[in-house]
């Protein structure tokens, strides 16, 4: 029984949503600056050519979308089943939706890059295929959320799915890894020292930071929106 959600104090009036969000504005400026640096002030890769510039968007989006956002989704889902705090449910929802956007960026920029470096738009390789399945899984999760009216039931059911998804992801990855392999191994997170020249590494670090800023700005905004929506639903129900 969720005692936390029913005992939580309800605001008498709803806070006014703000039209301008300074954090988001800073994040967008940072992303634009990082992209500009990557495009105009970073040397062109001798092997891969200009297409390699996608790297500065593709890899940060992948790290944030796959590891940060999905990690948050899984952890907050499992925690919700345990302590039943509805803020955890809103965190899971927000990270799923923002993560979906980042994974979408990965899935769009990936084929563009693959076309220029491997000569094909899509290969059924472990890392790529896992990302696609994870994207589909998160879409299913969000559709499930949209199919339930009650805040409490929605939180509970989606937390169950989020928890099972956490168990599923390693299986998907293992399965498709056994299937075949072609995607390059990680360059930046390689166990030995990074194999990139310092200028490129600097650009990568900056764009990683900028996208991380964007992720948290969007997450914060989405979380607030969910709080407002739930508060409104609670007021209407009362």
């Amino acid at each position, binding site marked *: 029984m969720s005692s936390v959600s029913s005992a939580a104090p309800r605001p008498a009036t709803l806070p006014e949503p703000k039209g301008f969000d300074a954090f988001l504005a800073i994040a967008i400026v940072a992303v634009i600056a990082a992209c500009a640096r990557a495009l105009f002030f970073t040397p062109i890769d001798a092997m891969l050519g200009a297409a390699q510039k996608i790297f500065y968007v593709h890899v940060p989006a992948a790290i944030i979308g796959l590891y940060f956002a999905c990690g948050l989704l899984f952890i907050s889902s499992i925690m919700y089943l345990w302590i039943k705090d509805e803020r955890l449910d809103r965190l899971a929802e927000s990270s799923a939706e923002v993560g979906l956007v980042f994974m979408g960026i990965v899935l769009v920029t990936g084929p563009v890059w693959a076309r220029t470096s491997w000569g094909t738009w899509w290969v059924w390789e472990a890392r790529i295929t896992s990302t696609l399945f994870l994207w*589909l899984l998160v879409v*299913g999760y969000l559709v*499930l959320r949209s199919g*339930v009216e009650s805040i409490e039931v929605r939180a509970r059911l989606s937390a*169950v799915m989020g928890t099972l998804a956490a168990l599923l992801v390693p299986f*998907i990855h293992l*399965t498709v890894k056994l299937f075949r392999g072609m995607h390059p191994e990680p360059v930046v997170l390689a166990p030995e020292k990074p194999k990139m020249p310092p200028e490129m590494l600097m650009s990568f670090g900056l764009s990683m930071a900028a996208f991380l800023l964007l992720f948290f700005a969007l997450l914060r905004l989405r979380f607030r929106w969910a709080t407002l929506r739930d508060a409104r639903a609670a007021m209407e129900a009362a």
Partner: protein
Amino acid sequence: MSGGHTGATHKAPSYLADAWRIARKDLLIEFRTRSAFLAATVFAVLAVVIFRFTWDPTAIPAMDLAPGVLWVIFTFSGLLGLNRSFGLELAERAYDGLLASQVSREAIFTGKVIANFVFVMCVQALALPAVALFFDLSVGPSWGIIVGIVLLASLGLSAVGTLFAAIASNTRLAELLLPMMTLPFFVPLVIPAAQATAVVLRGQPIAEGMAWLKVLLAFDLVFVSACIVVFPFTIEE
């Protein structure tokens, strides 16, 4: 929490007896109406026929196509039965009666999984020979291994599918939602099962498909236990 949740105090024999009673009830309803079974079987046969007519035997050897066809049919015909699993209970609010009874929630879930498992196996018992017949496969002495693969995959499919059927029955979009949620979960079942089947059909030693069988076994172990643990969360009121 309702007074019926006495899972911790139940003894093992009564837990299994309860589960079996639930499974028997569901199977009896299915046996009397046969609606889902007929739908799934007709679907399976139609799918085999369509695959057979879109297949060019001179371009692709039957051995390469058949495992995929078999497991596509397996997955989708399995889904047809799952939708019904909790739909039966929701009519006339029979589910509330079930929850108010002394049966533990884990036993309800196990019973539903057993019923769905038997259902999937019955559909497979017809679909497998149909694929073998239409694709002219000679399975030979290795049919036992294929039955083993089907058993492993059916168990995982029934456990995960039953849990998601319970979740989907709580939503407005049950029939639409179930395939959307379950199909990604079936990836680690369908790919290994199809690969292992391909190894057997090509007449290779089963040792070459051992990695796939291990994935299936691990999936069953992890997800059957996980589903039993999280199922009570889907019906708490």
